[in-house]
């Protein structure tokens, strides 16, 4: 008999499988030429991670159901058009997957450049979040070049920091709108306090109906902070001198 909770128990501290582990019949597929066997219902991202491939990811994490919004875990699959997101693509027997190629490198870099075009320069150097790891994986650890055409555009740098919660703060300037916090609030905590308000470029994490974190339905379980890959939701205790944004250029 298969138990649902076995999946939760397969979570490992040292590795983020990208999508939740699954129970299921073994399925063998090829990842970068290596035959890899994972349970059915697993994602290609999970299989690639188990195969040892380093697929950059931002919105995907193994404690949350896949979402497919960040578009950096793209791969190539024989017989499939385009570049499917590995997190939302279930494995199939005999599938042939490539996790890297010239085009994939370029595409991922192109996507991450878009993230960087709306992330504060002052928070790149010395950062150690998952976002910073992803930057290094796509070769953008230095941030966006000084003369990049994306510079000078609209950003969220002026949106105020929400420091209402005594324990953590939300800095919209660093939010990459991956919805991990929203999903953690729904799937893990079950409180449904967070949502994404607005559309398009204006999309922003919002507690309840545009309230502050403290005033909202948020119960401060910390699941959103834990889920945030980009230091946008972060413990205040990691800023012993207080949280001060760099002066805008």
């Amino acid at each position, binding site marked *: 008999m298969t138990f649902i909770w076995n999946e939760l128990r397969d979570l490992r501290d040292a590795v983020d499988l990208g999508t939740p582990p699954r129970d299921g019949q073994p399925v063998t597929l090829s990842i970068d030429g290596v035959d890899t066997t994972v349970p059915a219902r697993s994602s290609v991202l999970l299989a690639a991670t188990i195969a040892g491939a380093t697929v950059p990811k931002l919105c995907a994490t193994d404690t949350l159901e896949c979402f497919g919004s960040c578009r950096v875990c793209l791969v190539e699959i024989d017989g499939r058009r385009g570049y499917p997101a590995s997190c939302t693509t279930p494995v199939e027997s005999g599938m042939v997957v490539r996790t890297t190629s010239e085009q994939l490198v370029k595409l991922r870099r192109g996507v991450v450049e878009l993230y960087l075009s709306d992330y504060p320069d002052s928070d790149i150097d010395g950062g150690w979040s998952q976002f910073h790891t992803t930057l290094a994986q796509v070769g953008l650890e230095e941030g966006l070049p000084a003369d990049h055409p994306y510079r000078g555009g609209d950003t969220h740098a002026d949106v105020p920091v929400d420091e209402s919660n005594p324990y953590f703060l939300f800095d919209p300037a660093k939010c990459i709108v991956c919805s991990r916090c929203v999903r953690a609030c729904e799937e*893990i905590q079950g409180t449904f306090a967070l949502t994404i308000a607005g559309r398009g470029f204006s999309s922003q994490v919002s507690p309840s109906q545009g309230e502050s974190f403290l005033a909202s339905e948020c119960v401060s379980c910390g699941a959103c902070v834990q889920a945030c890959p980009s230091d946008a939701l972060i413990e205040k205790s990691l800023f012993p001198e207080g949280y001060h944004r760099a002066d805008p250029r």
Partner: protein
Amino acid sequence: MPIPVKPDRSVTTTCAYCGVGCGFKAETVEGRVVRMIPWKEGKANHGHSCIKGRFAFDYYQHPDRITTPMIRKNVDDPWQEVDWDTAFAYAAGEFKRIQAEHGTTSVGAVSSSRCTNEEIFLMQKFARVALRNNNIDNCSRICHSPTQFGLSATLGAGAASQHFDSILQSDVVLVVGANPTEGHPVFGSMMKRAVRRGARLLVIDPRRTETVDSPHCRAEVHLALRPGTNVLVLNSVAHVIVRERLYNEAFVRARCDGDDFELWMDLVGDDRYSPDVVGPEAGLDPDDIRRLARIYAGGPNSTIYYGLGVTEHSQGSTGVMCLGNLTMATGMVGREGVGVNPLRGQGNVQGGSCLGSWPHMLTGYRFVTDDVVRGSFEDEWKITLDSEPGLRLPNMFDAAVTGSFKAIYIQGEDPIQSDPNRHHVEAALRSMECVVVQDLYLSETAKLAHVFFPGSSSLEKDGTFTNAERRVSMVRKVIEPLGGLADWQITVGFMNAMGYECHYDHPSEVLDEIARTSPAYSGMSFDKIEALGSVQWPCNTDAPEGTEVLHTVTFPRGKGSFMLTGYLPTSERATDQYPLLLTTGRILSQYNVGTQTRRTANVAWHDDDVLEISADDAAGRGLSSGDRATITSRYGSTELTVSISERVNPGVVYTTFHFAHTMVNNLTSDLDDWATNCPEYKVTAVDVVRASIAQPVAGS
């Protein structure tokens, strides 16, 4: 530049707040704890957390923290700071003097469920080998002692039958007198996950709690019963199951005592417990009782989770038995997704129960009156043990008031705030000649103490905790004890000063001693827990990696025993003078009597206890939300701010008990459970009146 500091060290440990026992990674920068990260591999929490474990850890370095031992001859004297040896020698001298003057049994001890298994074990060992009596109790006396009694009597094991994850296999979840989303939030989230996956939720609780109705989680049936009618209503549920033949005859025949089953059917099948009779008495729609009974019995996999709303009654143990009976009658025990599970309060309250910190029991729930059991400990400890039961904590206070009990060693408890009838406890402590308190802060109780041992927080020591699902997890030292000694070292120091020599280099040696003397723990060791992450007892040669689900083949007591759970109304009744029934509970952001959480930023959410009252009752008293009101019971009175709430029915008022200054236990009665003396916190007849408004001073 807002780059976060990067922790330089990470230690995996177990949260001490509630009975869920979440795994955390404590991260430090230069020896200072900067954050607690929920541990993905923690089997109780799978990487989830709540506000308390995740954020409210700063209490450990609050300015109120006392880090030097102190003594004084008289409670009116100023404290005198001393070194550890002086403190031990003074306390031991007083205890020995008192025993010489008033007898061996005139002293006792109470252990803390905030301490590790090893420390609790050492406390009961202290009482038995250093005090040479059985006057040892633990704080589950005032919360879950009825669980131990009631589940032992029916099923044979006073602990949860399941592991938490098992709820994901349940089709029906029955929550009785518990509010997991506030009290056990990480389990509450798991319960909500089960409901979102399609499990049907049933709730029996006087209040419309968050558990009853929250986003994507709504109870299909909620029995908002009148406080004090648990046994009546549960018998009515059983009545429906018996009358409609919804019971599992095959299970009962194979697994339970048939004669007792017949007696039980006669009892609950009587018209006395018909929903049509019970409904009006308990303030319920009879059809709701029937619906709940049918859904529960229908399963196919139905599970029960319950809390202090069941136990803290004069029929607390009887209420627990009702639940045990229901699981047996319907065959809802002994596999995944079913069972009966107490939601334990404090981090190690299950450990407190398991480790022999009882006046009548040694570790593993074995009677001190049993010569064979006692003999095994006598062999281990090389000492003769008292063969008679000792005093329970309330009885220690009772005996103190009459002058028969003179000294107590209290580890990490604050009975003045947490125990019923504050005046009685205060009088008891004042009558004692030596009160030794071991705590982080000068608690309300420490104000009446003669010796203060500065305790260590759970961040400052190694050991193990046992959570509400019988899971034994590692507590690891993240920082050095601020007072210089871990709690286990303090108890050993006191023990040595009392003249019983023993020595441990590390708490792992204590767990080895527990394993040698306790069958359910016989397979446990630090090395094994380290290797497996955590282990659920029983862990022995039959189950070397522990046991997730109990009662799969037989019950520990052999045949399951249906107990006869006749309903007796509590003598605490609403009258013209005290027309409302006060019930108590807790809120998410505060923990128990608030000793720790009040010393964190959690006060941002809840900085005072408030009185929830229905709009009807408020209107009749001219009260609005925000008004101050005086609450008076037969035992005392206090003042609280009023909040008009739809969560309580007319006739019922509710408050939390997290703040010392609100003194809610001024109100509570000294009624208690017939079997265990667990206080009846959940029913107190009160009246509420508008507090007299201070006149503004003219011209000011």
